[in-house]
């Protein structure tokens, strides 16, 4: 079954350009859907395995908020990635995605003008809505230097055009904020394991005032997310019901045995409430949302061609983040973080999590696994994930699969699945 609505045609010129040049953006995930284009095998997909000379390398320094909610232009790629599992009044499973990607075309030049067309930063946004019957997706592009797109740490606002993930009522700065400059108030706090629970920042904790620009909580605690396209739009309020969670080792997430890594933290505890505007009408929805923040300069090894990534909201209140990086040269590299209902993360390194494809579907000329088994014995998790809509194909300039899943087995619940690098046959 194909999506009823054909995917929006990618701007072919840029698509092929980026794909061929392997510069770009991406969620580690995206590569171009030029018909017949082979996956960029030689360099890992979407160029994420390419040499990153001149860019900053991820280190293990403490993350500081709200500063690190903002952009890190010295790194090559970065994203603000929100997914939401929603239900309408009839109990239908629905999905929502809002993603902002930043890609540096070259390392920032300290002497260059900060506001100009020629600032070497490109932004890309993806928005999608998935229902059991259809999957609607759209994308936008923007130059980095004029204010068309950007991220301000506090009050938090991430935007591209009118697409926005921002604190309610926040006005946008007139132009792009100066990248990388410290906040005026100099606030920010290392989210190290000094406070319990280890690895989690106790956002909203009454004993920790003044750590953010908002009253008593993190800048990401209350947000609204909005996007609109030709055939759909949404407007959803997000309220965090738990702390930020640092992935990997205090936000340092290893991606390969060679040590490729990224900085990675999440806010998986959003309660979501809002409206999806679809061709058939407006739908009031509620549910759970998960925000991922990640930046790096060379997150993948050059033999890694794609990945399968999950974020699961289990009915027990636990959360599970896991990914499997497929490798041409050896067994997949897996990683997982189990998140207790109070936000306590337990990272698991390669091999602890097993992800097994159970069934594939024909999607956009590819065989893509849409039913999976996920096993994390250390936490007694053994579940089956099945796509709400197997045709949740993001047929954009960088095409990938991203959609909501239902969870059955040792635990029940809902989550999001993302798969990249599946080649056209």
């Amino acid at each position, binding site marked *: 079954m194909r999506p009823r609505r054909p995917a929006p045609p990618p701007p072919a010129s840029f698509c092929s350009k980026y794909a061929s040049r392997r510069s770009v953006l991406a969620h580690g995930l995206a590569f171009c859907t030029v018909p017949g284009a082979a996956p960029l095998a030689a360099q890992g997909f979407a160029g994420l395995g390419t040499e990153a000379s001149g860019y900053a390398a991820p280190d293990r320094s403490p993350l500081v908020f709200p500063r690190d909610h903002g952009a890190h232009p010295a790194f090559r790629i970065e994203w603000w990635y929100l997914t939401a599992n929603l239900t309408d009044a009839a109990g239908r499973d629905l999905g929502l995605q809002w993603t902002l990607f930043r890609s540096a075309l070259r390392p920032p030049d300290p002497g260059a003008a900060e506001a100009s067309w020629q600032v070497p930063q490109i932004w890309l946004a993806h928005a999608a809505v998935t229902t059991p019957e259809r999957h609607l997706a759209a994308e936008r592009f923007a130059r980095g230097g004029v204010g*068309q797109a950007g991220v301000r740490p506090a009050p938090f606002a991430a935007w591209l055009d009118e697409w926005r993930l921002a604190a309610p009522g926040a006005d946008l700065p007139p132009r792009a904020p100066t990248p990388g400059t410290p906040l005026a108030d100099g606030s920010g706090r290392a989210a190290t394991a000094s406070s319990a629970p280890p690895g989690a920042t106790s956002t909203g904790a009454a004993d920790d005032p003044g750590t953010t620009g908002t009253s008593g909580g993190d800048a990401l605690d209350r947000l609204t997310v909005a996007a609109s396209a030709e055939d759909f739009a949404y407007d959803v309020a997000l309220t965090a019901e738990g702390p930020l969670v640092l992935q990997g080792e205090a936000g340092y997430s290893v991606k390969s045995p060679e040590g490729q890594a990224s900085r990675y933290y999440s806010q998986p505890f959003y309660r979501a409430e809002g409206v999806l505007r679809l061709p058939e009408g407006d739908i009031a929805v509620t549910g759970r949302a998960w925000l991922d923040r990640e930046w790096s300069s060379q997150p993948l090894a050059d033999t890694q061609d794609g990945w399968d990534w999950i974020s699961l909201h289990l009915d027990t209140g636990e959360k599970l983040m896991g990914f499997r990086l497929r490798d041409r040269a050896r067994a997949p590299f897996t990683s997982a973080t189990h998140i207790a209902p109070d936000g306590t993360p337990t990272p698991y390194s390669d091999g602890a999590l097993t992800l097994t494809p159970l069934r594939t579907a024909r999607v956009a000329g590819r065989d893509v696994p849409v039913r999976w088994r996920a096993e994390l014995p250390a936490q007694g998790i053994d579940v089956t994930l099945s796509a709400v809509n197997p045709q949740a194909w993001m047929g954009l300039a960088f095409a990938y699969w991203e959609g909501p899943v239902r969870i059955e087995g040792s635990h029940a619940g809902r989550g999001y699945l993302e798969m990249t690098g599946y080649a056209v046959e």
Partner: protein
Amino acid sequence: MTRTALAALLSHWRRRPGQLATLLMGLALATALWSAVQAINAEARASYDRAAGELGLSGLDALVRPGEPLAVVDFVALRRAGWLVSPVLEGRVAVGAGPPVSVLGVDFLSAPPGALPAGLAGLGEGEEPALLFTAPGVAFAAPALAERLRQAAPAGWPEIRADAAVPPGQVLTDIGAAERMLARPGEIDRLLILPDQPRARPPLAEVAPGLVREAGREQGEIARLTSSFHLNLTAFGLLSFAVGLFIVHGAIGLAVEQRRGTVRTLRALGLPTARLVALLLAEVVVLALVAGAAGVALGYVIAAALLPDVAATLRGLYGASVPGVLSFDPGWAAAGLAMALAGALVAAGQGLWRVARLPVLEAARPRAWATVSGRALRRQAGAGAVLLVAGIAAPLVAGGLGAGFALLAGLLLGAALTLPLALSAALALGAARARRPLTQWFWADTRQQLPGLSLALMALMLALAANIGVSTMVGSFRLTFTGWLDQRLAADLYARAGSGAEAEAIRGFAEARGAGLLPTAEVEARLDGAPGTIRGITDHPLYARSWPLLSSAPEVWTRVARGEAALVNEQLARRAGLAPGDPVGLGPGWALPIAGIYSDYGNPRGEAMVALPALQARFPQAVARDFGLVAPAGTGADALRAALVAETPLTEGAVIDQAHVKQISLAVFERTFAVTGALNVLTLAVAGVAMLTALLTLATMRLPQLAPVWALGLTRARLGRLDMARSSLLAALTFAAALPLGLAVAWALLAVVNVEAFGWRLPMHLFPRDWAVLLALSVAAALLAALVPARRLARTPPAAFLKVFADER
């Protein structure tokens, strides 16, 4: 047997290489002219299709701030409000010694893919985004300009890439590089509104007050406007092809006649007729393919040579951008070959038919082509008369350009068919008046030859008539156009303001100097439902004095100045059937009575003129950017120009004097007809060749007719001179028939085709001096064509004459 027969048939060509060359050349020429026209048309159409598919920057609606550039913050504000817009920054910049270069800056990231030239290689595979989007950037230009810029580009310019997809004279680059090249940081000229917009957006007035939405140029307009031009070219191509076919017909007919003996012998030796015809057919096919291939190659060369002129014409006349470089399309090459093949078969048909019906035992006497009886002549002339009548009736019955061309075709073909009868009648008249025996023989013999020469003479007449018609049309147009330019370009200087500040500077300057000022503004609008332009003018006595009105109502200029009436150009008036006093729709809810109709040559679109304040009341974006300046008494235009450039921020390029505008307009005009002229000359040349082949054909067959005259005492040299005289006489008679036909063609072009194609009617002027030249040329061509056979005749050994009597006949 077959091989022997083939060798026997082919040996003919070995013995007469000149004849083979004529045949091949005729067919190649005909194919070449036809393919050249097709190639040019195909190239132009392909570029229109590309343009239509691409939308093009001008095809999209855009947001502008009247009189001022926009800023990047406007772009950002609209984008953040959900208006998907893409910035454009344009300008001209001087580079080195050559003409200024126009720079087009777009945001390569947000520009709609269809708005950029398709096939812009640099934006596809293989360009580093980092190079495109960051300093110094990458710019694309047509190869010639790219070469020039590489040597002369100022420091800090982007890297120049040659790309044939970019229109000549333009540099396409990212807006980040363009704002530096034009020294206009942070400015935007217009914001294109992309075709696909999100579901809901706040109204424009809320997001960006003060911005005005400008309608994009309608798609498909270029193709519609230029269709007449291409039809013109096609008609010429067909004419050349038809004339070329006369040559082929002559050459093949000659070959068949001369091989009668061979054919009879082969048949007598037992070769079946079918095989013989098949062999001859195969020969024709091979010859056609060889000549056709050469013709297509030659056509490509001709097209490539003519295309820059055609491209310049299309750009100057219609604003259509056609690359000056021809791409090879197998489609038209195949079509050219097919035309050559079909043409050769048609031309050979008669000869093959004759061979098929040749009685085996018929005496192999060489004879002139079948003597056409008077009845056949009359029948042909009757058909011609029918065609003439049908042609003349076409514009009366049906409208449109097609009817115009039907009229032309009817006139030309009908007249050509009646020509032999007319010539025969003229010769009979001559014979009736002749008293001396030799003169009587001369007239009778000329009449006897008429059937053999008639095809060539018809070709000659077609070429002559087309030549007279076209040159009369072009000449009339040139006279009218020059006079009209003098009237219309009454101001001394024309200045274009790039911004409101520059406009203010021009106003201040004119006031201080006491110079007359004629500001005008233009907006795109729908005039009586079709896309066109409304021009806003200010009241000035110069208009009443000089503006070329074709018809007007009383108090025309006063009423226009008061905003109570509009003027429309002839094109619009004709298209919409408007006359002074009728109302003309100038946009939604706005119509004004027409006070006058003005001639507007060279402009294919409808146009209306209203008072500037009235225009601005309806279209706030109509800001006067163009200014005519009239030098005060005692000041020369040059001095005024120098002062204007010195005292205002205007650049040299923004101020043009009247003489220069005229020069540019006339140059556009000349280029428009350069192609027509070239095709005209080529057609005439082809007709000359047709004449030559026909005479050559006849010369070899006329020996039996000449031998008795020679035997009676006329020298061979005298016979040769008489033949030359005969050719001149026929050419002169043909010219006499072609002249009225040519004038009729000119009238049809001016009064029917031009009106349909361009929307203007021109007065017809006559150019008797051109006719004299043409007469001299055609007689000279006939003499030249007769020279070779006449010399051959003069040198024919007496034995050959004697053999006529000795041989079995």
